[in-house]
């Protein structure tokens, strides 16, 4: 077991954004977290990434208790994350952005530079490597975020809507990139609204609604469950005519 989140609860005062969510993740899996807006998936995601300390429950990664660990400790342990709104370092070049991540496992500048260069090439940013991050559009920024996390050498990558806002062509390229990353042995947790991404990439999904996990399983089976349909579309009243 690579990651085990057990009965995770995140309360803000009397409001429970996440209520008793659990997740067990094996090395090499790709799982998706889905649910309507405000369902609690991003809060749960932030707890897994160390950005929030859950008010209840326990998170164990590779045998180590990470429940109260800092984001830095998560990165050192091998958990990398992207942000829903890309947070690239605007005044640094693309290569420098990636080097910040690379320094985690390669303290010497020359080694970090070489590692970052390889990652930039792998993620298709080679031609823009010398440009400032602020010159990139949305697809480029999302790609750069992935590259930066990849440079930290993660065992688990948490992608927070990393593929949102892309054109169909860009989406296909991004899906191919995620597959490529997975092929290198990285385990992935993906928060995504685009069902194409969920159905294409993930082996298993967890569906959140009102802070609870209401369903889990294979994507094609889960999307047919009544509870999931109702979470997205609301409770319909069927009237049968006699």
């Amino acid at each position, binding site marked *: 077991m690579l990651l085990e989140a057990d009965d995770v609860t995140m309360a803000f005062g009397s409001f429970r954004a996440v209520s008793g969510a659990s997740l067990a993740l094996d090395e090499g899996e790709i799982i998706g977290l889905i649910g309507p807006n405000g369902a609690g998936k991003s809060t749960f995601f932030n707890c897994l*990434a160390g*950005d929030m300390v859950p008010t209840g429950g326990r998170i164990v990664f590779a045998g180590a208790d990470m429940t109260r660990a*800092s*984001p*830095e400790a*998560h*990165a*050192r342990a091998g958990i*990398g*994350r992207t*942000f829903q709104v890309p*947070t*690239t*370092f*605007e*005044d*640094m070049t693309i290569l*420098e952005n990636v*080097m*910040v*991540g690379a*320094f*985690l496992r390669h*303290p010497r*500048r020359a080694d*970090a530079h070489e590692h970052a260069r390889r990652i930039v090439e792998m993620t298709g940013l080679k031609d823009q490597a010398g440009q400032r991050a602020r010159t990139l559009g949305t697809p480029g920024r999302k790609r750069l975020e992935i590259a*930066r*996390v990849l440079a*930290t050498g993660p065992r688990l990558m948490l992608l927070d809507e990393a593929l949102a806002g892309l054109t169909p062509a860009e989406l296909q390229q991004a899906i191919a990139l995620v597959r490529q990353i997975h092929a290198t042995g990285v385990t992935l947790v993906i928060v995504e609204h685009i069902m194409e991404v969920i159905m294409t990439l993930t082996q298993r999904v967890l569906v959140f609604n009102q802070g609870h996990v209401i369903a889990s399983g294979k994507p094609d089976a889960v999307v047919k469950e009544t509870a999931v349909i109702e979470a997205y579309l609301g409770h319909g009243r069927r009237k049968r005519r006699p």
Partner: protein
Amino acid sequence: MKTGTLVLAVALLAYPFVLYDHFYWDIGVGLLLAAISASAWNIVGGYAGQVSVGHAMFFGIGAYVPLLVFNLWQLPPIAGAPLAVALSLVLAVVIGLPTFRLRGHYFSMATIAVAELIRIFIGTWDFVGAAIGLQGPAVGRGWWDLTFRSELPYYYIFLVVLAVLLYVTRAVEKSRFGYYLRAIKAGERAARSLGVPVQQTKLKALLLSAVFTSIAGSLYSIKTGFIDPESGFGILISVQMVIVAALGGAGTLYGPLVGALILVPAQTATNTWFGGGGSGLTYILYGGIILVLARFEPGGLHELWQRLAPRLRRTPRAA
């Protein structure tokens, strides 16, 4: 060494011989002191984006301790400089440890408050001369007192210190530490998610900055042979560091030096033209620069140059 750096180095080395006059040497010394102070501030304020508005506390400690060791034990003032550095480091830890745990402007607020508290305290403490301040040796007892009649030796001593500081800053820029500082400035949350030890990195930057600011203070008091609360810990000392660095380009290697090259002669000019009555113009000058920078060019002259240079290169030559 790049051509620009070489030209700058030669110009600074040759300056006292090109403008062979005490008046210009004095401006040169003031310019170098402003460049050293602002470059020291730049490490934490420019590169890490942790804006200290109370760096005068380190400058003041650096200025007071050398004259204090002279007054207490008749030691050469320069002997007090290492002690001043040590005290500045302690103060940096005391301020940095609690405030760097928090995001936002807590650090800036803490630096203003502590610097003002120290200034008021020093102004009432007889042990350090209270409001009157301290004096250094009136006549040098030997070269080790560093009391020269001419500004020329001070000019070259200050130039060496600036060169060392710029060399250290350049090394920081190229190192992991430098990348981490820039990442923190750009986005603390993202930096942490990449494993950057944010609090520790910011504290290191403050310590390094405090060391050189303290040295700048020591150089100042050793040269002038006098220090009082206002010239050591005054808010204007801190503000000048911020403005000099911001004018040239905070977070860049030569930004503070460029800022000093413009601001110090401008200050001298206003003081010369308007005499004693023009001393208040310094405040107006600082205020004007803050307004212009905030409104039009927050990145300073360096950013402006970065934007204009490609256009100038593209300008077609006349046929």
